[in-house]
């Protein structure tokens, strides 16, 4: 294979990737600080100084972490992975990448300034008819447009590779980045539509009212694939990179690709499971999307199997005995493995909680309670984020020509363990309080002395304890990142890419037949959305004017 002569990411591509990472980790610092202040406020023992609003902080936390940190990290990581496995970017591709980066960054700054000026305290979901300053919506549009250019880099490189290699099976991680990029482009059309066609003209005063139901539906058409857009890069690392780190082979190339195709098909036509409690959507259509939501569990089951199959067969090849003997053979002193592994473990309760959330009438018990916040702090803020941290611990030195020293490696393991401890407290207490009915997205309140609200307060104190530990872990993380980017000893840090097991079968060509997969994706979306969406227009109530209630 021609892969062996491309073991390193080219320095020029590396700079592009690092630019994305700098923004991502600055966001982590800002968003993490906001998160710390939020849990302290909710404990009831701390009041924000200097006229900062709780909901302003919450907006900042959501936007910089859920939208900025994730998008920048993913764009950077996918470009690095494709450059490493499918070849250095052409100068034209790199230019597109930089243009995307600049556009996203201008958008991010515009949106951030509006949040800091308290002109956009609408949370990261910006539900109408709360109306932010038009510059906030322009900023978000630019972030999305920039990310389309970043995705275009992936698709262009992939097309070039396929052409140059006579349509052979593409490198696995490139294929996965392509799936995620296609999903991202299809999904962001929804949010782009509501921002450009509804929110922006309305905030500029060009139209007086907005159709709230349509806007929410377009948002959630995007909002659920958004979470898979976060998750799939973690799965790329779990499928392709982790096996190499532990010294094993990839269990099956075809099954890995097949699970990614299933994610493409079933991540998008499922947005109604975020709207189960709302009017204007027929109960049967909600249920149809609940069924489709459950189909996306199947590729996650496949992933779990593949991972543990890799771990077990590796352990046994090292002479492990008994049912669980292989567990001891895993490299427990290597941060590149341990930190993402903590993330994988967190995904087990995280995924189970997700099934509960999506369960139609069962959602009534937890909808908009802090249970949901606890849920996505296990999935995106632990499973995904710790995997991103684990990637950073080798990718940053790889790109900056430095090495991960033993001392930093040990510090990184401490970081991961601190995260696990902090998150157990915070997310655990959030889940528990949520089951008792405590709402999410709410500042500290005694709710007029209601006895049920008094029961929530001890859990809020536990959340503050957990959140403080998590903040320590973030400080540690940033310290390690700064070390790896600027101070670690010069050297060569490997970019691990797993090889396919010899016993694995040849990959069927159909998996790269995009006409079929994109075609089915579009059909499923049309099936799940057309009729209820038309209903929303037909039975639309009078539109809403904008409100600024903060």
């Amino acid at each position: 294979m021609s892969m062996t002569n491309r073991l390193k990411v080219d320095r020029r591509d590396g700079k592009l990737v690092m630019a994305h990472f700098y923004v991502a980790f600055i966001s982590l610092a800002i968003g993490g600080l906001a998160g710390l202040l939020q849990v302290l406020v909710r404990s009831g023992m701390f009041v924000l100084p200097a006229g900062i609003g709780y909901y302003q902080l919450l907006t900042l936390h959501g936007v910089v972490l859920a939208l900025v940190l994730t998008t920048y990290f993913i764009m950077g990581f996918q470009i690095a992975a494709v450059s490493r496995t499918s070849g250095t970017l052409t100068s034209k591709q790199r230019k597109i990448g930089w243009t995307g980066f600049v556009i996203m960054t201008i958008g991010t700054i515009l949106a951030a300034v509006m949040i800091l000026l308290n002109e956009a305290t609408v949370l990261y979901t910006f539900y109408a008819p709360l109306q932010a300053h038009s510059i906030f919506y322009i900023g978000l549009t630019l972030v999305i447009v920039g990310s389309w250019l970043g995705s275009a880099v992936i698709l262009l490189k992939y097309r070039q590779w396929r052409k140059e290699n006579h349509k052979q099976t593409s490198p696995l991680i490139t294929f996965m980045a392509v799936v995620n990029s296609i999903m991202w482009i299809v999904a962001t059309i929804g949010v782009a539509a509501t921002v450009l066609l509804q929110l922006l003209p309305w905030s500029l005063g060009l139209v007086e009212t907005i159709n709230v139901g349509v806007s929410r539906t377009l948002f959630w058409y995007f909002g659920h694939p958004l979470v898979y857009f976060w998750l799939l890069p973690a799965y790329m690392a779990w499928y392709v990179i982790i096996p190499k780190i532990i010294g094993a082979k990839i269990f099956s190339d075809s099954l890995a690709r097949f699970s990614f195709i299933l994610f493409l098909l079933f991540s998008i036509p499922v947005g109604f499971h975020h709207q189960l409690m709302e009017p204007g959507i027929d109960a049967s259509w909600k249920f149809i999307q609940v069924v489709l939501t459950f189909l996306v569990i199947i590729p996650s089951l496949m992933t779990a199997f593949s991972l543990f199959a890799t771990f077990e067969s590796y352990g046994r090849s090292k002479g492990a005995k008994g049912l669980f003997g292989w567990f001891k053979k895993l490299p427990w002193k290597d941060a590149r493995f341990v930190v993402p592994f903590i993330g994988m473990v967190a995904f087990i309760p995280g995924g189970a909680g997700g099934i509960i959330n999506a369960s139609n009438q069962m959602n009534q018990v937890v909808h908009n309670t802090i249970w949901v916040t606890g849920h996505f702090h296990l999935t995106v803020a632990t499973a995904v984020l710790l995997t991103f941290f684990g990637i950073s611990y080798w990718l940053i030195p790889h790109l900056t020509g430095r090495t991960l020293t033993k001392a930093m490696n040990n510090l990184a393991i401490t970081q991961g363990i601190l995260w696990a401890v902090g998150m157990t407290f915070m997310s655990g207490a959030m889940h528990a309080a949520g089951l008792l009915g405590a709402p999410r997205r709410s500042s500290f309140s005694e709710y007029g002395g209601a006895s049920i609200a008094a029961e929530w307060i001890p859990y809020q104190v536990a959340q503050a304890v957990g959140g403080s530990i998590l903040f320590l872990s973030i400080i540690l993380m940033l310290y390690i990142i700064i070390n790896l980017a600027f101070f670690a000893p010069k050297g060569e840090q490997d970019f691990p890419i797993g090889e396919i097991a010899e016993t694995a079968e040849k990959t069927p060509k159909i998996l790269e037949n995009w006409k079929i997969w994109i075609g089915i994706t579009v059909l499923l979306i049309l099936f799940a959305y057309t009729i209820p969406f038309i209903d929303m227009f037909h039975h639309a109530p009078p539109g809403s004017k904008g409100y600024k209630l903060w």
Partner: protein
Amino acid sequence: MHMHKFEKIWLIFGVASLIVFLSVLGVSAFHQGHHPSSWSNIIDPEQVDETKPFDEPGLKKVEGKEWDYELVFVASAFLYAPSEVQIPLGSTVKIIATTKDVIHGFQIPGSNVNMMLEPGYIVEYITTLNQPGEFLVLCNEYCGVGHHMMTSKIEVVES
């Protein structure tokens, strides 16, 4: 594509569990009628105070229906009308609610009552109150700076 025998077993077990689980949800929703509040009537959000039944928020006894009372709520930033209401224990109540401004989240913690109030839509939910005591009504969707102060109180009293 070849699958390992264990993977087949794992996936068959997984998919079968999903089917069983979805069937339970489906039967409960469609056969037993445990739907979350869904499709609904519309209203002009600017005219809520003038539109029946929202011109008179509060509890109303009704006859000849499957429920004993209708409990009408009007939400607006940052309060519910009525702010307090008493309901006889064991009665079946149809909650009818809407919002005059932004989105609110109508939730009674400790119960299954949880529904989004969106401008222009009337939401309804039928429930039976067979536990005496005070119940809090709160807002669980961010609606502005006073969001966490938005409450009402339902007192279930023995008649």
